[in-house]
């Protein structure tokens, strides 16, 4: 938020410079034209935002209190959908699964920070490695999911063949209740690693060397330098990544739907969005699906707000 409103100084100076006493009316006319142009320029995104985000958002809230199958108009049923959601074992399982997948976020961040630290040195081939690790990030999630579904094949998949080299007999990853979620987590880490690494690398490169040199003179060990210089300096990136990863992770859908089209063995891979999608577009339970979608929205908001609060508190402590 560095770019706030431009100070009106240059224009005001220009206006006072030309006529000896600037008639205020003319100035406001000049501004009115600028206001009109500015309003015209932001009109489209604003209209789009109201039409495709705020409108549907409000309608979602309304629909969540109704019984609605798209064939007839919605009828008000109060909190019944929410009551149903809290009692629905499938919804609870899908919530649990969605949170379970987020275990991958700290693992992925730790790995990518390690990678970024390894790459943050004067050495040849840095940009080559950066590009290699970034390839999965640009790949389409649909294609990647198809590929990994095949790679997790119990008998002929790449993963188990690689495990065989070290004498491990791999499971049938996606067919097994205890391995399907870890399998999806590993894939998500593989896909996202390059992105987090890139952001960490950029942050590391902007840490002034003098900080490390001063710490070294003071006799701080490399572990101490990491804890007291590196980690705090990359804290904004960590915050950004945690927030965006949680928002994205709460909406995990594509890989679930492609790799485990039935929601996994015993519903063990289904995510909230997958369940909402099924209820809405296969079972036409639009009201019930809306209630779950609203709960998801509230959850995302609460987690994000909590992250911001945590970040503000940490930043404050840092100043003390």
């Amino acid at each position: 938020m560095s770019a706030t409103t431009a100070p009106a100084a240059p224009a005001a100076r220009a206006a006072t410079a030309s006529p000896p006493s600037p008639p205020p009316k003319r100035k406001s006319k000049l501004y009115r034209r600028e206001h009109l142009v500015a309003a015209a320029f932001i009109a489209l995104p604003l209209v789009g935002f109201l039409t495709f985000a705020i409108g549907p958002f409000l309608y979602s809230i309304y629909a969540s209190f109704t019984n609605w199958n798209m064939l007839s108009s919605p009828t008000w049923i109060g909190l019944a959908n929410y009551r149903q959601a809290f009692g629905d074992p499938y919804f609870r399982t899908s919530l649990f699964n969605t949170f379970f997948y987020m275990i991958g976020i700290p693992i992925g961040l730790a790995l990518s920070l390690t990678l970024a630290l390894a790459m943050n040195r004067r050495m040849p081939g840095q940009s080559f490695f950066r590009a290699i690790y970034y390839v999965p990030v640009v790949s389409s999630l649909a294609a990647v999911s198809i590929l990994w579904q095949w790679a997790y094949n119990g008998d002929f998949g790449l993963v188990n063949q690689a495990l065989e080299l070290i004498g491990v007999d791999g499971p049938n990853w996606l067919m097994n209740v205890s391995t399907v979620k870890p399998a999806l987590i590993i894939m998500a880490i593989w896909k996202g690693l390059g992105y987090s690494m890139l952001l960490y690398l950029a942050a590391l490169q902007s840490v002034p060397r003098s900080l490390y040199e001063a710490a070294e003179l003071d006799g701080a060990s490399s572990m101490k330098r990491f804890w007291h210089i590196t980690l705090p300096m990359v804290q904004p990136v960590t915050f950004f990544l945690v927030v965006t990863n949680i928002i994205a992770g709460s909406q995990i859908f594509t890989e679930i739907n492609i790799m485990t089209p039935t929601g996994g063995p015993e519903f063990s891979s289904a995510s909230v969005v997958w369940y909402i999608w099924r209820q809405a577009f296969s079972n036409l339970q639009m009201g019930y699906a809306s209630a779950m979608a609203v709960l998801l929205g509230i959850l995302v908001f609460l987690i994000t707000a909590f992250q911001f609060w945590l970040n503000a508190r940490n930043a404050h402590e840092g100043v003390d």
Partner: protein
Amino acid sequence: MASNAKRRYRTGNIIVAVLLLIGGIVMVAPLLWMISTSLKTREGVFALPPEWIPPIPQWDNYVRVWTAGPLLSGIKNSLIVSLSVTIVGSLTSTLAAFAFAKLRLPGKDFIFLFMLAGLMIPFPTLMIPQFVMFAGLGWVDTLLPLIVPGLFGNIMMIFFLRQYLGSVPDSLIEAAKIDGAGYLRIFGSVVLPLIRPAIAAQFILWFMAVWNDYLAPLIYLNTPERQTLQVVIANFNANYAIQTDYPLIMAASVIALIPVFVIFLAFQRQIIESVALTGTKG
């Protein structure tokens, strides 16, 4: 002493490079394996031990794949959606970013924050009413629900361009105003040339995001010939896995990945630089 430290640094480099190389192999192995599978025979896929390089590469798979499903129409549909959204949407977003960053308008910062906060609403919370709205317009099973919302611009792009415009001095714009230039001319001849690299990078990132989108096309498109590429390859996967025709599935997926890989190779520097900025400015 100094040369000793230098030697230690160089040894460190070698160790790091070896570790990075092993990691890099892990990163690309699945993709190489996908290409390898796409060139095998249906039986060759089940060979034990696995063959990384098929004895006789089955290039025929890449011929077969075009008639095995609506791949070509998928590419065409994806191109229509991605290009129309990003070209028109980038223009809309750039004009809005210019207004938000450089023009006077009471309340514009409030509007901007309001829109930014809206980014927190997850798409699944919006998709049901959006679907009903577009169904009411008779747009289901057309590309319009995927195109029209994008034409109104992209809040993330507005955000980054607005940040970028912060580094353009106001005096440049005021000077152009005093010269009597209209706002569109100021935009075209002063602002646009200055922020062209930022627009290009955001354009590329957005193009790839739309190209790779899966959930929205899945909801709206039913007829196979009207589906976008990502939905087409997902259907390939569902249909041909039953026949264990993995080479065909992988060939379709490779084809779906090629456009973004080409874009990534061509604009690697811009993509990496602009993504690296998102973390520090976000």
